[in-house]
């Protein structure tokens, strides 16, 4: 029964999501409705979490904007998420990087993979 749900979800899922994970720096191109027409808006930062499964999967991107920490959570399969660009692969040792919230400046650096 569960797989029937999953096959149904798969229909709505994006076929080619780039492989990225926590620690990676990404740029998310987001479709924003503005004054009757759509335009693309980018949000750049470090992926701190991927959550949920199937069609319901979301990911959270953290960045420091004007001195304040900002985290945005995107539904991975949302048609509004136009494109995800991977800028840098990070080497991290856990799945959720919530510890970054308590760190500032130098301490938020993430080692690059290889």
């Amino acid at each position: 029964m569960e797989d029937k749900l999953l096959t149904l979800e798969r229909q709505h899922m994006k076929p080619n999501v780039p492989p990225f994970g926590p620690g990676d720096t990404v740029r998310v191109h987001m479709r924003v409705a503005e004054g009757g027409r759509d335009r693309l808006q980018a949000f750049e930062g470090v992926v701190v979490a991927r959550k949920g499964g199937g069609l319901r999967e979301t990911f959270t991107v953290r960045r420091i904007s004007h001195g304040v920490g900002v985290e945005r959570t995107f539904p991975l399969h949302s048609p509004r998420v136009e494109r995800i660009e991977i800028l840098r692969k990070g080497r991290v040792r856990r799945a959720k990087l919530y510890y970054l919230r308590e760190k500032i400046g130098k301490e938020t650096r993430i080692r690059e993979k290889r």
Partner: protein
Amino acid sequence: MPALLGRKLGMTQVFDRAGNIVPVTVVEAGPCVVVGLRTPEREGYAAVQLGLEPVPESRVPKPYRGVFQKRGLQPVRVVREVRLAPGETYEVGQALKADVFRGGDRVDVTGVSKGKGFAGTIKRHNFGGQRDSHGVSLMHRAVGSIGSSNVGRVFKGKRMPGRLGGERTTIRGLRVESVDPERNVLLIRGAVPGPRGSVVLVRHVEGGARA
């Protein structure tokens, strides 16, 4: 007034055209078979009996088997009766699938709600409970007073703790978000009574998007 018997597969979400998330319940719609008719001439009212999930004849009690043999049908696991609107006609043996509904239809969904066991008044009747502090002792989720000493008895129907759930429940006016005839599946916006895998009855509501 189209109606269907189905099984609840579970909940998920889909995106609408604007990209908004819509929570939906996935219901596998049969296929159902019309196993019998109720006519005003014979029974005094008009209705159809819908059947869900065929079972082999050998797995069914003899009297039950006879009912289906007489009509030349395979026995089914579940039978439910649905009242007909005047002028509606069905035939015995007719198969009904998800395509009797269309996206945008309003439906009532009936099922047996999840059993919650013996529940207190906060969960069962939405009582407010008592304070967490200010001297309240061992009474935080308790019922409190159940009447006055002047009356000297408790009124009938006083809401108290007891068995909750596991009863027939109808959620009215839900919207059919979309229909997948290929998989024979309905996506209904919002929640529907019962656990995954339970039998639900989906009925079209007059005055919905489709007249």
